[in-house]
């Protein structure tokens, strides 16, 4: 029989296979970004704000890491519900903030009177802050296609910690507050836009407006009181 020379194997398609694999891994692999909790420190000032008792949700932790809500001992998981109750807009409940009504008309009227005020006092910083706030509210009204109720400007969740409270307690309290807040935001988002809040992407312009609108209704307002010893 004839002995034929063995043909060379064609390796031309090897590169294709390699690229296929490369692209597969490129698409399926995700990098984990470091996970963080973000916070903004307040400006250094000695001014004491006088806050209306009913506009403040007071959360405390003592040196033994025991939690108190509005002056009474509580479990750390209770914070979530307390925050939800504080933010939920039911008018006329005693010891709850007096929520402000926001509609398109109110926004426009307020902006107009602020405009006039700024013409008289062009450098008044408080008016400018107010103007910014109301512009955002007007945008929110447009995004929702209607009005809403929100917390008054000076309403806040206040955290009081002892100097000996441990860091893990502080983080857990912040986490509980954010869990409560985010679940409210999520149900509002489902209600108004039909998507979950987490899935909105702040790099997309239309989503960005939605995020900003929802944040107007449920703003993150956390105040840390300094060096007060809690009993």
């Amino acid at each position: 029989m004839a002995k034929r020379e063995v043909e060379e194997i064609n390796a031309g398609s090897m590169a294709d296979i390699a690229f296929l694999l490369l692209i597969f891994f490129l698409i399926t692999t995700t990098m984990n970004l470091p996970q963080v909790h973000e916070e903004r420190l307040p400006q250094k000032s000695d001014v004491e704000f006088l806050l209306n008792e009913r506009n403040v949700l007071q959360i405390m932790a003592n040196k033994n890491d025991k939690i108190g809500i509005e002056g009474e001992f509580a479990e750390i998981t209770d914070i979530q519900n307390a925050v939800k109750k504080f933010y939920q807009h039911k008018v006329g409940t005693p010891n709850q903030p007096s929520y402000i009504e926001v509609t398109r008309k109110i926004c426009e009227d307020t902006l107009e009177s602020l405009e006039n005020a700024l013409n008289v006092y062009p450098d008044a910083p408080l008016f400018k802050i107010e103007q910014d706030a109301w512009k955002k509210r007007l945008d929110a009204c447009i995004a929702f296609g209607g009005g809403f109720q929100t917390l008054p400007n000076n309403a806040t969740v206040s955290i009081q910690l002892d100097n000996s409270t441990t860091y893990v307690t502080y983080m857990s309290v912040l986490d509980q507050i954010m869990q409560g807040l985010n679940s409210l935001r999520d149900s509002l988002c489902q209600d108004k836009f039909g998507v979950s809040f987490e899935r909105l992407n702040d790099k997309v312009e239309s989503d960005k407006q939605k995020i900003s609108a929802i944040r107007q209704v449920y703003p993150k307002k956390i105040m840390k009181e300094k060096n007060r010893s809690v009993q």
Partner: protein
Amino acid sequence: MSKFSKGKKRKDPAISTAALPDIVFMLLFFFMVTTVFKEKESKKLEIDKVAIKETIDLEKNIKASYFWIGRVPGKVDDFRVQLDDDLINDYSEIKDYLTELRKNPEYSQVWGSRFFNVFKVDKKTEMRIVRKVHDELKEAEAFKVVYSVNREK
């Protein structure tokens, strides 16, 4: 001479090595893509990080200063602060360090917007230490703080 020569030795064909670079590149790319760079770690302090549920991704391409607060290895209750590479002895060093950093135009441009103070803090740290660092940050007008945490499933 026969029609079918038997005497001539048949040579094996050379194995093609054309695909070798492909394989090598494939491996290279695979490792390039799957490698996650480890977060900056402190070698001088022991830190047991906190795990919470509501976390956000840290932005990419930020300018940051890194603070570690944790235990000195081998000692029981000696909590110290490490700023970038060195342990600090006095809290006022923080302000000096940040003021120096701000003179660099790369940092001063983003100071109010994309300059972060990344905190990695041990669970058991007392808040007094964190507060002292915060006070220094306020002095240096560096208000953005992020706490590096683990995400709880």
